[in-house]
C-alpha cells in the first residue's frame, strides 16, 4: 500500500486545501467523487492491487481448505487462458456484466445511484422474449426478429429504469430505493410471465417458448454469441460519448455540481432521467442478449444477480467505460476460472463470492488510504 501512497502524493500536489470531506453516502459516492480526480495512476493501481490482495487472502482460505493455492490459481489461469473454450466462456459471462456495468458507470458519474439493473435486466428479458416468441411475430425472418426483439427489450429496460428516475424527479423518491424495489416487482412480473403470460403451452415447467429464430448467432470460430461483440462495441462508444458529447459533459457536471448545471446549462431533471434511461436501456439489452444468446428461453430462474455483480464491475472500472470493459472481463474470468477450479479441487462454491467481496473491501480501503495521503479527511 505504500506504493500507491507515494504515487498519490506525487500526482496531486497541493490538492489538500481545496476539497472538503466527502458528503455522499457510501462506497459508490466516494468512488464517484474520486473518479477522474486523483490521477490516472492511482485510480488504476488501486483496483489492481485490490485484486492481488484479495487473491492473496483467497489463497490463504484455499490453503485452509486443504488445497494448494498455487495449483488452484494455475488451474484458474489455464481454464481462462487456454483453449478457445475458456475465452468463449469468459466472453459470454462478461457480456451482461459489461452492458449493465456501463449503464451504472454512466449513472454513477452523475452521482445517481441506481442499483436496479437486475430488474431492468429481467424486464428487458421478459419484454424481449414476449416479443420474439409472440404469436405472428415468431415467424418473422431471423434478423428482423432479433433486431426488433433487441429494440423492444432495450425500450422496456429504459422505461423500467426511467420510471424510478421519474419517481425521483416528480415526487422526490430516492432513486436507490425505488430502483431496488422495482427489482422485486420485475421479479414478480417475470414469475407471472413464465407461469401465465408467455408460458410455453407444451411445457410442464414454468418457462417461455423456445426463442427459436431469434437465437443469436455465434461469433465465427468461437462459442460466444454476438452479444459480446455488441457489448465490446458499446465500450468505446460510451467512452467517446462521455468525453466528447454534450450529454457526457452534462452527466459529469451534474455529478459534481447540480446547481451550477441547473443555473447555466440544463435543468437537472433532464440529466437524472437521461442517465436512468441509459442505464435501463443497457440492462434491458443485457437481458434479451442473455436470453437469446445463452439460455434459449426464459425461465423463472432468470434472475442470477448480473444486475448486482455489475455494480462491482462499474466501481472496479472506476466508472470509466474502458475500465468497465476490463473489469467485466476480469470478473467473468474469475467466475469461469473458479468454476473450473471448484470441480478440479472440490472447493466450496462460495469462494468466488468471498474473493469478489474482498476485492470490493480492498478497493474501499485503498481509496480511503489514497484520500488520506492526499489530505482530504
Amino acid at each position: 500500500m505504500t506504493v500507491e501512497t507515494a504515487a498519490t502524493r506525487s500526482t496531486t500536489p497541493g490538492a489538500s486545501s481545496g476539497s472538503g470531506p466527502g458528503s455522499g453516502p457510501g462506497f459508490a459516492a466516494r468512488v464517484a467523487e474520486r473518479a477522474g480526480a486523483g490521477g490516472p495512476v492511482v485510480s488504476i493501481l488501486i483496483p489492481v492491487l485490490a485484486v492481488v490482495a484479495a487473491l492473496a487472502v483467497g489463497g490463504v482460505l484455499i490453503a485452509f481448505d486443504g488445497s494448494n493455492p498455487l495449483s488452484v490459481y494455475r488451474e484458474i489461469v489455464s481454464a481462462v487462458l487456454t483453449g478457445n473454450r475458456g475465452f468463449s466462456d469468459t466472453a459470454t459471462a462478461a457480456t451482461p456484466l459489461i452492458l449493465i456495468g456501463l449503464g451504472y458507470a454512466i449513472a454513477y458519474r452523475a452521482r445517481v445511484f441506481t442499483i436496479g439493473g437486475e430488474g431492468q435486466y429481467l424486464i428487458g428479458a421478459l419484454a424481449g422474449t414476449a416479443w420474439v416468441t409472440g404469436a405472428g411475430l415468431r415467424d418473422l425472418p431471423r434478423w428482423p426478429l432479433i433486431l426488433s426483439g433487441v429494440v423492444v427489450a432495450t425500450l422496456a429496460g429504459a422505461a423500467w429504469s426511467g420510471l424510478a428516475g421519474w419517481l425521483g424527479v416528480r415526487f422526490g423518491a430516492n432513486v436507490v430505493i425505488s430502483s431496488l424495489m422495482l427489482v422485486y416487482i420485475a421479479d414478480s412480473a417475470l414469475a407471472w410471465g413464465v407461469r401465465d403470460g408467455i408460458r410455453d403451452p407444451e411445457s410442464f415447467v414454468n418457462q417461455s417458448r423456445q426463442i427459436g429464430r431469434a437465437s443469436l448467432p455465434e461469433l465465427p470460430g468461437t462459442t460466444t454469441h454476438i452479444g459480446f461483440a455488441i457489448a465490446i462495441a458499446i465500450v468505446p462508444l460510451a467512452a467517446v460519448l462521455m468525453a466528447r458529447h454534450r450529454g457526457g459533459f452534462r452527466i459529469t457536471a451534474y455529478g459534481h455540481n447540480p446547481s451550477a448545471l441547473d443555473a447555466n446549462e440544463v435543468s437537472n431533471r433532464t440529466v437524472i432521467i437521461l442517465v436512468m434511461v441509459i442505464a435501463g436501456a443497457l440492462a434491458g439489452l443485457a437481458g434479451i442478449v442473455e436470453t437469446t444468446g445463452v439460455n434459449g428461453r426464459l425461465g423463472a430462474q432468470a434472475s442470477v444477480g448480473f444486475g448486482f455483480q455489475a455494480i462491482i464491475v462499474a466501481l472496479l472500472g472506476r466508472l470509466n467505460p474502458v475500465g468497465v470493459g476490463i473489469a467485466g472481463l476480469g470478473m467473468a474470468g474469475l467466475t469461469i476460472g473458479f468454476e473450473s477450479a471448484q470441480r478440479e479441487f472440490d472447493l466450496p462454491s462460495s469462494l468466488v463470492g468471498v474473493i469478489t467481496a474482498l476485492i470490493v473491501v480492498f478497493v474501499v480501503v485503498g481509496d480511503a488510504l489514497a484520500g488520506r495521503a492526499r489530505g482530504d479527511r
Partner: protein
Amino acid sequence: MCMGGPSLMRSEALVEMRGIHRRFGETHALAGVDLCLRAGEIHALLGSNGAGKTTLVRILAGLDRPDEGTVTVLGEPVTKFEPKVLRAAGVALVQQHFTLVPTLCASENLVLARPDGWRVPRQRSARARLGALVERTGLTVRDDVPAGALSVGEQQRLELLRALDADARVLLLDEPTAVLTDQEAEALLAVCRTLAAEGRALAFITHRLGEVFAGADRVTVLAEGREVLSDELVTQHDRAGLASAMIGHQSSGAFTHRGGRAGDRAAGRLVVSGLRLGRLHGLDISVASGEIVGVAGVDGNGQADLEAALSARVAPESGTVAVDGAVLEPGDPRGRRTRGLAYIPSDRYQWGLIRAMDLADNLELGRVPRWRARRSQRRAASAPSLGHWDVRTSGPAARAATLSGGNAQKLVLARELDGRPRAVLACYPTRGLDPTAADTVAARLVACADDGAGVLWIGAELDELLAVADRIVVLAGGRLLGPFFAPYDRAAIGLAMAGVHDGEALQPVEAVGDR
C-alpha cells in the same frame, strides 16, 4: 460567569506562532509569519484574497499543519496539529463556510459538537444547555427550526455559540461579517468585545477596514504569505494607511465613482414586469441600455427570490422577465444565454462554477456544443480568454477549486461577459473579494454598461452601489422603493432599506446609512 482564571492577566499571550511556513505545491502560502494573540484583545487579520490569512487560522485550529515554525497555546508548544488537540487546548474556529448540520435544530447542533459522554443528551438537557449559553452570551438563536432554515446571521450566531460552548479561550473567526448585514456585523463586533473583556483572545479575518477600527485592538496585515504589518496597535494607524498596506498602493478606501450615465430609459433592455415569487409582490424593473441599476437592501427581503426568478432558474408565480423583448423561459438556462442575459450568481461556487472540473470546462458551461473538441484543444482554446480576463492560474487544466475567490469570480465574468451580453444580472458580484479584485470586477461590469448592456446589480455594500449605480432602487419586504438618483441621499436610502422590514432584532435605522 468569570472566564479568566486567577492566573490569567490581561495582555498575557495566549497564542504565539513563530516563523510559520506553509507550502501547497508551488504556492508559498505562508512564508514565515508570526502571530501573537493576547487575552482580552481582539486581533484583526487583514489581507487580500490568497494572502494566507485562512491558512494561518486553520493551522492554529489544527485543520492544517505548518511546514516550519512553532505554535504555543497557553504556554504549551503544539506538537500534533489535529482539531481535537487544539480544541482541547482551548482554540475554537468559526469557519467562513458554516459547518452546521442543516437538518438538526440549534440545540442538537450544539450537543452534537461536544457530547457529554457517549450518548446523545436528552432534548431537554440539550435545550437547557443552549438556553444557558444564550443567556450568558446574549446571542439569540431560534431552536424550533432546523439550522438550515435559519438566516445567515443566526447560523453564524449558532456557530459562535458552539465555539463558546467548549469555553474556548482563543476564538478565531474567519470572515465572520462577510455574509452579514451591517446591523448584524455591528452586533457581532459588540459580542466580540464582551468576549474579549472576559479574558479571551480573539482573532478575526476581514476585508472591511471599518470593522478593524470599530472592533479590533491590534492588526496584522498579510500579503502573499508575508507580514506587511505585524501585531500593531490599531490606534497607530488610519484607514488609508491600512488600505495601502493591504493592497500595496495608496487607495482612497472607497470605490471610484463611475455612476452618472444617462442611459436610454425609453427602451428597457432588461424588463421585469409584475414579478411574483416567494417574498416578491409584483415587481416592475426596467433597465435601460448603458445603465447600471443598483438594488440595495438588507438580505432576506426577497433578494434570493429576485435572483432565482431573473436568472430563470425558478418559474415565478406570475410575471415575466424579458431581454430586448424576448421573454425568458424558466428552466431553460441556455435560452437565457442566447437571449443575451449574463448571470453573475451570488454564490459563485454553488451556481457559477463546477469546482471539480477544469477551467476550460467551466468556461464552456452553458454553451457546450453538441460535439465537443478534444480536451487539449478545448484547453488551448480557453487560454486567451483566461488571459484577457486576468484569471491567474497555472493554466486551463487547473481545476476551478484551485482558484482564489477573486480569480474564481473573474472566471465567472470571463464566461458570462464574453460575447457582449445585452443585459447583466450581477448578484453581490464583489462579495468576499479583496479591494483590488472587487475594483476589477466593478470596472468590468461598468465597461459592460458602457458597451450598451443594461446591468442590474444586486448589492450588499451601499458604498459600492452609490459609486457604480446610475439609479438605485431598494428592495425591502419584497417591494421596490425608490428610485433614487445621484447625488444620493444616504439617509433616505437607509430609511427605505429599513422601511418595510419586519425581521428580527435589527439595530436602529440610522446605522444603515453612515457606515
